[in-house]
């Protein structure tokens, strides 16, 4: 963690806490958060090297094995064309994760820029920028994403960007409030008094002190983005059919819901696990920032 952040809590409590030993810190990590990291790491590994986790082909199926329930050979069963659902989930992880990464990056960069400029410049610029943010907040995120999709068209990159646009407002608000908060502290004033220029102060003092809050929001947005991307994929605005995208897979499995529960239930559980983990990690980052 950044050493700068501890100064804040130290001034509040009035005493500098002793640095916890490695063992003590290990004990402080709760099981849930560790599990959350494990889930995310597995999903990342799936995205980076799907071949290590499954030998089956995610697109070509074995017709003779169509609609087989989960067993030792097919842990998640097979779909109507005999494709291994587990292999499709593994290969699909790259679509969801890279999409979520793009979305968070778009939201983070655009939002932080808007918020930081609004918070530092102030005055009319701040008013205008924050009203823009108000407009973004006034439209439900799904409708905002749909508005972007209707302009840009369908596709994996398009929906990732559309989901990112829906996250801009949250980052902008956070960045602005962090800039305003940190700017009011004594040491930033001291940095100015010491001859620091605006950008230097922003880079060296405001940014490091806001990192925890930004990281917590980014993790939260990552989970939200995976959820939103799978929703847009389910609605059919993402990648076209043979692609093993999680939302699309669930949409395709819908027709067999009466007979083949595994087609929708198991990919959905994977989505829930990843989103839940991202939220859990976000909460643990936020807690550390406050502690």
């Amino acid at each position, binding site marked *: 963690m950044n050493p700068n952040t501890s100064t804040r809590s130290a001034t509040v409590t009035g005493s500098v806490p002793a640095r916890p030993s490695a063992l003590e810190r290990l004990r402080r990590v709760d099981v849930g958060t560790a599990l959350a990291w494990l889930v995310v790491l597995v999903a990342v590994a799936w995205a980076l090297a799907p071949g290590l986790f499954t030998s089956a082909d995610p697109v070509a199926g074995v017709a003779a094995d169509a609609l087989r329930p989960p067993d030792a050979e097919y842990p998640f069963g097979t779909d109507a064309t005999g494709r291994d659902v587990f292999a499709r989930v593994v290969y699909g992880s790259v679509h969801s994760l890279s999409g979520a990464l793009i979305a968070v990056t778009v939201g983070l960069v655009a939002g932080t820029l808007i918020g930081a400029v609004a918070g530092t410049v102030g005055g009319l610029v701040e008013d205008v920028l924050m009203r823009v943010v*108000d407009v973004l907040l006034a439209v439900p995120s799904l409708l905002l994403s749909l508005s972007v999709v209707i302009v840009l068209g369908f596709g994996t990159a398009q929906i990732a960007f559309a989901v990112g646009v829906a996250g801009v407002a949250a980052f902008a608000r956070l960045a602005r409030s962090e800039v305003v908060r940190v700017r009011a502290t004594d040491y930033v004033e001291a940095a100015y008094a010491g001859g620091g220029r605006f950008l230097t102060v922003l880079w060296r003092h405001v940014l490091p002190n806001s990192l925890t809050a930004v990281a917590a929001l980014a993790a939260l947005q990552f989970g939200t983005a995976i*959820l939103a991307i799978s*929703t847009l994929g*389910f*609605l059919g605005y993402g990648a076209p059919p043979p692609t093993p995208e999680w939302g699309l897979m669930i949409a395709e499995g819908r027709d067999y*819901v009466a007979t083949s529960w595994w087609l929708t239930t198991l990919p959905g559980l994977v989505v829930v696990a990843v989103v839940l983990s991202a939220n859990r990690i976000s909460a643990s980052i936020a807690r550390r920032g406050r502690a």
Partner: protein
Amino acid sequence: MRYVLRRVGQAVVVLFAAFTAAFVLLQAMPGDAVMIRFENPELGLSPEQIAALREAYGVDVPAHRQFLHTLLGFLRGDFGYSVQSGTPVSRMIAEALPGTLLLASLGFVVAVILAVGIAFLSTYPRLSWIRGALRALPSLFVSVPVFWLGILLVQVFSFRLGLVSVIAPGPVEGLILPVLTLAVPISAPLAQILVRSIDEVYTRPFVTVVRSRGAGHHRVLWRDVAGNALLPALTMAGVLFGELIGGAVVTETVFGRAGLGRLTEQAVGNQDVAVLQAVVLLTATVFVLINLCVDLLYPLLDPRLRTKAGAAA
């Protein structure tokens, strides 16, 4: 009074900005929707016919006049015509609205019941052994894809247990699963804020005072804590409304129900810009109005905010 005026002014500015953004994004983009639809060579329209169509849709005039025309139209409740079907958008929305209104209001009621139930049960002393599980529920609820939840409910209640028919269900039976699907994600943020504010109210000195005078858990919870804890939930009203509309898009699509959400989903599929624009702007308007009401009502409900010093804190 100045606060009220400023707040109303702010709301109007946001709505105007939302309209402008929607106009610029959706209408003034290169190659307007009318051209996309009618320049298709299969239709075999002559350039003169296309020009006539463009005039009928009002896209042949300069952008600033189009802007004024559309703005005045929106203010009168005229949202133009669907590019796909040629029907007035206002009529399409009026037809879709009742279905969604019913679904959303029932979903909201169920969500409130769920949230209040979770919040109060998780602070109930005798249930402390499942407190952890109860408190984990909201974070589970927000992590569940709505469309997946809908399918799962159909799977369990219709196909496994055979409790709710999905093939030609009655009007009430057909509402059960969609309402539940919509309610679960809405209840999560509400439950979270309730749990947090109940915990917060319990730490206040006055609760200790009431307790020390011999009040039991129930009396403290219902007479002293509940009222104070519900107030912060009011600030969520606008966000919850947005979630309801977003949830309706997915829920109505999954269950094949007619309504605003389905209309929106089809508009995106058909590139029907006029319909989506109307839905987006109507939603934004209601959101801004709800927040305006909450902001104006809040000081009346919370006396601490009536003074300048309290409002600043």
